[in-house]
């Protein structure tokens, strides 16, 4: 083995503003992510749109996860074990693109975020490592 497993996972937590979708997060977010998958079916999207709270009752998620979903608080959902490819089912149902939804996690307006992308994106300078501050 090239590297100790504990060290491997510790390093993944050292990136500013990033939640790597580790097995630990995947376990925490299992039902949250499976709920998201259910929105790939048209009839489920219709039920979800009609009454979001009622639809959530079928899913054994924590109250925190349910509230974060209703609030579309994507950073919170990442903390609670959500993964962006799963959460995409929620924002696609809302009619949002990846750029629209992803920009809400950055504290920037969609327009400012788009401008940043057109100008070459966010520089990695200063956001590589929490420990190193580089």
């Amino acid at each position, binding site marked *: 083995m090239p*590297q100790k497993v504990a060290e491997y996972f510790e390093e993944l937590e050292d990136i500013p503003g990033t939640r790597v979708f*580790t097995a630990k997060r995947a376990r925490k977010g299992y039902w949250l992510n499976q709920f998201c998958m259910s929105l790939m079916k048209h009839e489920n999207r219709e039920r979800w749109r009609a009454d979001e709270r009622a639809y959530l009752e079928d899913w054994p998620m924590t109250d925190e996860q349910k509230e974060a979903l209703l609030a579309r608080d994507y950073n919170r959902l990442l903390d609670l074990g959500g993964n962006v490819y*799963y959460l995409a089912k929620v924002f696609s149902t809302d009619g949002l693109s*990846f750029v629209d939804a992803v920009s809400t996690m950055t504290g920037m307006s969609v327009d400012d975020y788009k401008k940043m992308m057109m100008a070459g*994106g966010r520089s990695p300078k200063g956001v590589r490592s929490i420990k190193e501050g580089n």
Partner: protein
Amino acid sequence: MAKITAGVATSHIPLIGVGVDQGKQDDPYFKPIFAGYDWTKEWIMKPENKPDVVIMVFNDHASAFDQNLIPTFAIGCADEFQPADEGWGPRPVPVVKNHADFAWHIAENLILDDFDMTIINKMDVDHGLTVPLSAVFGQPEEWPVKVIPLAVNVVTYPIPSGERCWKLGEAIARAVESFPEDLKVQVWGTGGMSHQLQGPRAGLINAEWDQKFLDDMTANPEHLPLIPHIEYLRETGSEGIEMVMWLVMRGALKGQVKELHRHYHVPASNTALGHIVLENGA
């Protein structure tokens, strides 16, 4: 005998698919995105270059696989695969046709070569597989090549190391060489380059790192499998990790590999678009 003639890598950004499906190629935003594929479109349809089969290394984005089943390496062995409904209806693209005899041959050889492949018969294929086809072949009635889907988990950690991906490429090359039918085969690596689709650091792009990675495909390939996951994540964003799939492609090539074409453009949606065409050595 089957022979790997070339390796191709390209980002598989959903927006490229949207651009093709909605005929936006001449829109100012899309123009520079598509311009970089013109060379490849012409090159690949010349009879001396046109592959019979493409081995497509891609990842599923919570479309065919959910949290119930997370195969590290999987190979599609059915006769055909339908485009997935990713939440807004399936893309209007042709069904993906496989060369199933060849796919089974590769699966058998890989397993006996110590790669514990998952075999898939039913799988809808998402933008990870269909966008590269659209970028290179446009909108034909039928895809002009057979496609063997090879799915890599790059979503739920731990994902396979760069070194393991490279070695899988080497094993694929051995499997291809032992197939008796005369076939021109290309291996395609998809995904990347820099992008992060989550959290306050979203939108990260590192053009310098990406360009060096493209350079090293020919200048310094032995360095590539040694890049640890943490470097991709720190330097190119959390979804930049998809570049490990390019290493399966590069590992399948050998000898003096020559760069034939390169395309790099920022942005396409949240992502740095990268595309390279490599001629296989002898």
